[in-house]
């Protein structure tokens, strides 16, 4: 995508997304625009210079000069960072969404090379899990998720709140309009699906799946009680991902798809094979790298969680 010409009048370059065109072609009435959102995907707010020597008119000089790319037609590649409407103007802190890695059972893999450092490894079948863990199907290895049963062992946790290095204190309550009450979890449906951390791997309901096979799950507080929880912990001393006032948190596991569980086709097409030190000793595995994206439906905050789907190379 090229940059838009910003030498003259402000222009607006509008396109239908691939999903929009697909729905238009279906002709079933699903192409109906009912709302809008604004985003600032290209903006780097760290360029905002409140101490510019020339005065306040120059604080955002560099930001305003940011060139803007043409519109992407891929619906998942744009509108990543939405602007938020909050009637109050006196906020100094905003809540964020953060991957919680306070305990071993929801940490990412952290071994040395050739380990896949910094990802969650989803063992797509019991054979792979056995090769990693040695014996049994429980996942003692940090960052390894049981992708077949997905009913016990490690999981992924995302916390929401003001992560302000303890000031304000977690003892304070997060203001009600800043508490995230609904999360959108997006995952490539060819690879896996979202299941609950507790209750024997209860499957979350897919809200919709787009033309790129990205499945979206809407998980709400008080409705999806196996997934979204109020974080009532206000203790400073407890190990928590959020160091300030806490809102809610989301817990889930990733269950591998039947395609990954039973075949190497997608691994060969979309991934590769390599020796990895997930367990011990080093072994060869097929793998596909992907992301699970978690977005706060209310606050718009999002996080991409790296996931590596892994199958033992026989």
């Amino acid at each position, binding site marked *: 995508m090229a940059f838009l010409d910003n030498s003259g009048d402000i*222009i607006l370059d509008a396109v239908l997304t691939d999903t929009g065109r697909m729905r238009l072609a279906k002709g079933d009435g699903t192409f109906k625009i009912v709302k809008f959102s604004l985003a600032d995907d290209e903006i780097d707010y760290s360029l905002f210079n409140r101490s510019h020597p020339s005065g306040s008119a120059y604080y955002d000089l560099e930001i305003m000069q940011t*060139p803007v790319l043409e519109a992407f037609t891929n619906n998942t590649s744009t509108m990543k*960072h939405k*602007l*938020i*409407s909050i009637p109050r103007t006196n906020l100094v802190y905003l809540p964020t969404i953060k991957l919680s890695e306070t305990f071993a059972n929801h940490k990412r893999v952290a071994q040395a090379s050739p380990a896949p450092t910094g990802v969650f490894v989803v063992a797509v079948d019991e054979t792979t899990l056995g090769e990693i863990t040695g014996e049994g199907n429980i996942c003692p290895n940090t960052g390894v998720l049981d992708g077949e049963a997905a009913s016990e062992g490690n999981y992924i946790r995302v916390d929401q709140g003001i992560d302000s290095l303890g000031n304000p204190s977690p003892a304070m309550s997060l203001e009600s309009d800043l508490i995230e009450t609904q999360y959108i979890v997006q995952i490539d449906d060819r690879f896996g699906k979202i299941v609950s951390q507790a209750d024997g791997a209860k499957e979350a309901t897919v809200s919709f799946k787009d033309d790129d096979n990205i499945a979206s799950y809407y998980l709400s507080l008080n409705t999806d009680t196996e997934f979204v929880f109020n974080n009532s912990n206000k203790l400073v001393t407890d190990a928590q991902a959020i160091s300030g006032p806490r809102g809610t948190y989301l817990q889930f596991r990733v269950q591998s798809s039947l395609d990954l569980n039973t075949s190497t086709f997608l691994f060969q097409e979309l991934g590769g094979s390599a020796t990895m030190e997930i367990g011990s000793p080093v072994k060869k595995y097929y793998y596909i790298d992907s992301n699970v994206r978690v977005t706060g439906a209310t606050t718009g905050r999002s996080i991409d969680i790296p996931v590596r789907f892994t199958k033992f190379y026989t």
Partner: protein
Amino acid sequence: MASTFKTFLNDDIATTRTLLHEAIPITGSIIYGTYGAPGAELQIKTFAHGMFQSVYDYPFLSSSANHIFDVTHAHNSVFQTQGVTGTKSDGATYDGASQLGAISTHPFFKKRKNIYGQMGQVLVGHDVVGEIQKFDQDGDLLSAIGSKYNCLIFMNFARLLGKDEIKKGSFELKIGTEQTHSATAGVMNDNLLTIKDDGAATNYKVNSPAGEYGILKITGDSNVSGGGISTQPEYDAKCGLIFYQAGVVALTPDLFMGFVASVYNKGKITNASGGGTDGVDAKMNATQNILALLNDNAKTMDDVALAFRQRIEKVCFNNTTELNSTIYFCRASHNDFNYSSNPTYLLNSKIRVKGKRDHDPISYITSVGLYSSDNELLAVAKLSEPLRKDPTNDMTLRVRLDY
């Protein structure tokens, strides 16, 4: 409550219709020559059935080539015996049937009739008893009285150029009517007639099943042997029809032999000085005499198309694209969209652009997303530069989607 979406109200969505026009100039050098010798031009696609030729703007085997228009011609059964009537340049009269009486034995006789029937059905329709109507000079299809076009040369413009329709009153064709065939550039463009649909913007016909059409006339811009024709009988003579939505131009081959039984000898493709005695048979043996070609058993429809193409100096018109648009007024009021979920917006959860509690929050808009009720992104618009949004301003971004 924080939110990232704003729902459109009823008055935030408007629909409009816009007509977009593009100028389409086609020079004769594309239509004839440039890409090979006559009859073997690489930009001309011929077919085994020989019923029409396709003209491209580049050798048609190239993926860069664009289809411009097709050329064909046709006549009905009346033409077989009607022939040409009127006064010859030497003062004698045409005797009609004897000149063209043998046309029914022409190997392309049925194909020409087929084309006439096909174009007639589509462009002028049927009468009350189901007979295909004849093309009429002034559009009076129902009347048996009046001049009918029993023989026509058709230019069928590709939709790539014509789009939704040819703009009324914009069509212009400059065509040479010089009798002499020559490979030398420009020779056949002598005795140049300028054909237009003047006045069609406000005066056109609507009794065609293919939509609206106008009358083509020879205009005063014509230049015959270095002089104008404003005082000659050819001036303002009807010479064809243009069907705007169908993108079809139908021209009478009478263009090439003088009009209204005139003794006026210029502007004809044939004349007495060509060696014969009248406009039809004078150039019977010349490969480029269009009317003669119609009656020459040795000549194909491709020969006629070639002879026609060679004389075109220029075709131009404006096309029309009908844009149906929906305009979405994205209104961001003073207290909307002042914060951002951009990861760089916060440093340790503290808003970077606010130094103190009483500072206004600031955000910068670069994108507008249009969503369905289930939050699927259906359309996206990008601003060419960031727009600053803070509580001291409100703005309306007008996003137009064309269909």
